[in-house]
Each structure stands twice: as structure tokens, then as C-alpha cells.
């Protein structure tokens, strides 16, 4: 009844006023619609985050629930930052991050550039290239250990086919100097398509009229690439780097299945190190502090990066 009245009044009043009148009952709907999402995120994200921060200042261990829980202040943080293992795994993560990003950006951009030549059937081949990134990293990573087997593995055979190196003479997973590159290779295989798709969106956003103008000015193709294509696709490229950076900082499933952090600790990325502390050694308080440090790091790096990205966009 009153709703009907509001409608009638609303349709007779100027639009600005009408919107405000209707907005009154809309507010209830807005709250009704947003609240479940916010509540669920609070319960599954924010509440655990606060709990993690609290745990990080205690010596709590999940496997010894009866031990008295003591408040230790920032002791856990001090221990982590002075632990050489932490720095080793941060170093492994940095190697993994930088190598995968460089490789994926170069390959992804090149592929996008080629696909943008619009040859026949390019959309089907784009889809086929995208397939690896859609699949379960754990399941695929597990199968890659089979491809990497010395002697019988397809990868080692492929290398023999190309270079003649004895396929039984090297183990991509077992060798200390090869293992860090093994995980880089599989991650690049899996995620280059993602960078490619973002770059493709960037290349397609460049209006053809700019190239036409450049042609009229007799700018060489080479010059067009460096002064039009690359600068205009750069914000997209940087966005792709941001997403891959965040994802690979969190990397767990693929690498844990491939190498499990080994041999030694050569591929022990921070997530794997954290999992060991939290769910194998059960040092919950210590691991919580570790988690907080990682979260602050990724959040901080991402914020700085986004600021730089916005500068490039505004230019």
C-alpha cells in the first residue's frame, strides 16, 4: 500500500527528488544484499586474521593444547627475522618470482603480439594455449614429476632429442642447480597464457587510427612498436605482472607437488616453509608470526606497485 503511494508520488515528482524518496526503502535492500557477503568475509577472513595476529605473540602449539599459553610479545617475529632459513626461503621465492615474471612477460607479450596479427583460426589456437592455466596445479604438477623422470620421462627424452644429452644423466627434480628452474619452467608453462590474454586485451584496446596516422607520417614499423604499441600496452603488462606477482608469492600447490621444497631447501618457497612450521612442526604461534610477516610483505609490495601503476596510467 504505502509502496504504491510512494511510487505514485515518485512518478509525479522531479527525478532527483524521486530517486531520494525511493532510496529510503532501497537502503534496507542494500543492507540485506550486502550483509551476507560482508559477514562471511568477516568470519572467514578478518576474524582469522585477527586471531593469527593474536596467536603470533604467543608460544601456542596446536599439538600440545594442554601446555600453558604464554604471551611472548614480539619474540616470534625476532626469531623469524634472525633465522637464516627464512631468508633462504625468501631468496628462493625471489628467484622464482623474478624468473617466472620475466619469462612469462616476454613469452606472453610475444604470443599476444603474434595472435593480434589475426591469422585464420587464431581464436581456437588462443583457447588451446589457455588450457594449462585452467587445470588443477596440484594434479598437473604431480604428473610433471613423471615427465621429469630421468631416462623414461618425456621431458628428458625431449632434451635428448634436441641436444643429444643422455636422458638418464640428469634429474630436473633431484638436482640442486636444476630444481629452481624446474619449478620456473612448469609455472611458465601454466601461466604464460594468463599474461598473454591480458596483453592481448591491451593490444586490442589500441585504436587503429593511431597506426594509420603513424603510417601517414612514415614512421617505421620498428618505431611504431616502440612509440605506440609498447607504451599503450604497458599498463596492461604491468597489471599482468601484479597478478602473477601476488599469485606466485602465495605459490604452494604446484611446487609442493613438483619438488616438495627439495632437494635440500632449494625450492622451499615461503608458503612451503610456512606449511612446514604450521602443520608439520606444529609451531602455531611461530607460524602465525611468519604468516603476518608474509601478508604485510605482499600487501606492502602490492600497494607500492599499484601506486607506480597508477602513475603510468595517468601519463
Amino acid at each position: 500500500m504505502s509502496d504504491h503511494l510512494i511510487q505514485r508520488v515518485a512518478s509525479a515528482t522531479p527525478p532527483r527528488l524521486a530517486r531520494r524518496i525511493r532510496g529510503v526503502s532501497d537502503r534496507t535492500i542494500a543492507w540485506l544484499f550486502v550483509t551476507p557477503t560482508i559477514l562471511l568475509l568477516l568470519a572467514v577472513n578478518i576474524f582469522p586474521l585477527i586471531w593469527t595476529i593474536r596467536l603470533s605473540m604467543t608460544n601456542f602449539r596446536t599439538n600440545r593444547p594442554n601446555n600453558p599459553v604464554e604471551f611472548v610479545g614480539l619474540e616470534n617475529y625476532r626469531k623469524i627475522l634472525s633465522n637464516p632459513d627464512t631468508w633462504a626461503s625468501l631468496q628462493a621465492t625471489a628467484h622464482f618470482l623474478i624468473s617466472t615474471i620475466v619469462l612469462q612477460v616476454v613469452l606472453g607479450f610475444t604470443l599476444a603480439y603474434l595472435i593480434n596479427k589475426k591469422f585464420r583460426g587464431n581464436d581456437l589456437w588462443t583457447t588451446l594455449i589457455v588450457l594449462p592455466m585452467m587445470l588443477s596445479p596440484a594434479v598437473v604438477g604431480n604428473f610433471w614429476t613423471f615427465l621429469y623422470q630421468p631416462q623414461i620421462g618425456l621431458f628428458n627424452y625431449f632434451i635428448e632429442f634436441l641436444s643429444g644429452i643422455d636422458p638418464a644423466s640428469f634429474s630436473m627434480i633431484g638436482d640442486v642447480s636444476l630444481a629452481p628452474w624446474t619449478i620456473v619452467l612448469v609455472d611458465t608453462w601454466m601461466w604464460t597464457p594468463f599474461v598473454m590474454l591480458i596483453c592481448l586485451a591491451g593490444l586490442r584496446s589500441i585504436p587503429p587510427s593511431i597506426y594509420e596516422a603513424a603510417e601517414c607520417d612514415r614512421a617505421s614499423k620498428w618505431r611504431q612498436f616502440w612509440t605506440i604499441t609498447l607504451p599503450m600496452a604497458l599498463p596492461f603488462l604491468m597489471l599482468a605482472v601484479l597478478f602473477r606477482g601476488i599469485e606466485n608469492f602465495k605459490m604452494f600447490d604446484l611446487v609442493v607437488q613438483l619438488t616438495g621444497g627439495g632437494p635440500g631447501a632449494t625450492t622451499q618457497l615461503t608458503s612451503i616453509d610456512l606449511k612446514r612450521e604450521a602443520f608439520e612442526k606444529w609451531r602455531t604461534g611461530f607460524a602465525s608470526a611468519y604468516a603476518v610477516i608474509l601478508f604485510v610483505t605482499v600487501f606492502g609490495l602490492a600497494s607500492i606497485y599499484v601506486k607506480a601503476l597508477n602513475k603510468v596510467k595517468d601519463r
Partner: protein
Amino acid sequence: MSYSITEPSSRQKWFAGILVVGYALLTLLPLIWIIATGFKTPADAIAYPPKVIFTPSLEGYVNLFTSRSRVTPEDLAALGPPTTWYDAIVRQYDMVINGPSRYGERFMNSVIIGFGSTFLSVFLGTIAAYAFSRFKVPLKDDLLFFILSTRMMPPIAVAIPIFLMYRQLGLSDTHLGMILLYTAVNLSLSVWLLKGFIDEIPIEYEEAALIDGYTRFQAFYKVVLPQAATGIASTAIFCLIFSWNEYAFAVLLTSGEAQTAPPFIPTIIGSGGKDWPAVAAGATLFLMPIMIFTILLRKHLLRGITFGAVRK
């Protein structure tokens, strides 16, 4: 088509095409190898040089779905001739089938948890996105950023308190617990993607409906939802793919009852070494739905990936 000076020459197109197709074939090789290995016998799977041409066998699939035990030749002889074709395969190795393996259960868990969490995250995501898109929500930008920032947490970091919380609430290793967790993880993507799709629907449609006497709910249900249908569908596929593929939470928070396929498949072993054909068979069945989805729905999916990423 009219001639344009910016259109690549046909020689350029050929060159680009050959390079892209070459890359595609190379990256598809591991996937083809998974499918092929599933149809090999264990001996063929580990042959050197790797066998490209082989007699297909269903041994991998039989081993995947059954649990078997070894018996002495005398016992085997006493059993009489095998009654089914899969019995026959198993008996070549002096084994008998004891019953089904756990693969079927794990696969069903993936289906239940995947579809359950997809439904929930798309439902909650749609209504939240509608509210963010159409109404004045206080602190809107902060809330949207908060929703996005939940994705930056490493899963292992979130898993510590969730593990403790779920133990207290009795949610660990349950379908409901995993559905709620995956829903929460997917919500950020779903709200952001759907807000983009709903933003594109002209607000005038609803205003017209409201003037015609529809209530807000009716306008949402009868005008906005049909318009957003493709957006909702592609968001659903993204959520489903995430839940289907997720490993970190699944391996830490489930062990029996609610364990999904990704933590289970790598643990498949045979008698005496890893049974790669069975692993490959399990992986094939698990990856195939996503591959088919991707190829069939490529237009929406590829748009969704760039759209979601570029908007964020």
C-alpha cells in the same frame, strides 16, 4: 573487407600463425601425454624411449577404480575363470579385486563442494554486486577494496586459524566447512566480476519497471537477472574452476570424509612403485570437464579473465 594500411600482410599472418600453432602444440604435449598414459599398461608407461604408438589398455582405469590384493597362483586357479573383463585384466598380475577404490568418493566430493560453493558464491555475489552497483552503500569503496584484499592472503596463512576454528566448530573435514571456505574465497572475484556486468546494464530498464509498478525485488528478479545471465554464467564457471582445482585448503583441512580429488590423485600408488597409468587416468577424468568447458565456452571465459583482471 576494405583495404587498410594497418592490416597485417598475408606473409606476416602466416609467420605469426606458424609460431603460435607451434607454441600451442608444444604446450599441449604434457596434456596429451596425460591422456595417453592413462591408456597405457604400466610397462608401456615407463618404456624407453617413450612410446608414442602403443596398444591401448584400460588397465589404468581398472586400477584407478578398484582396490586389489595379490593372491597365490593356486588360490587364483581355485577361483575359476574371471567373470568380467576387468577381472581378467587384474588376474594377469595374480591379483583379485576386493572392491571399489576411494577415487569415486573423492570425485563426488569435488562435485558436491564445487557446485555447492559455486552456487553460494554466485548467489551472494550477485545480490552484493547489485547493491554495490545500484545503491549508495556507506563506505562503498572501502568495502570493495576490503573484499578484494582478502585475495592477497596466502592460503596457508589463512589455514592456520581456520584449522583451529573449524576444529572447535566441528567443521573440519566436512562438506559444509569446505563449501563455506571456498565461497568466501570466491566471493571477492564474484562480487567484482558481477559488479562490472551489472554496471553495464542501463539503469533506465529498472526505472521503467519501477514506474510500471514493480517493486525493487521484482525489478531485480525480472529485469536485472535476465540481463546479467551471461555474466552470471561466466562468473559461475570461474568460481567452479577455482573450487574444482583448489589444493592447499583441501590438503590441510580434509583427510577422509570431505577430501576432494586434487589432494587424492597424487597419493594413488600401485603395488611396487607408482602406478602412473592409474594416476593419469584419474587426472584425465578430473581435468577433462574443465578442458571441455574451456573450449566450449571460450568466448565468455576469455573475456571474463581479461575483464575481471583489467577492472580490478
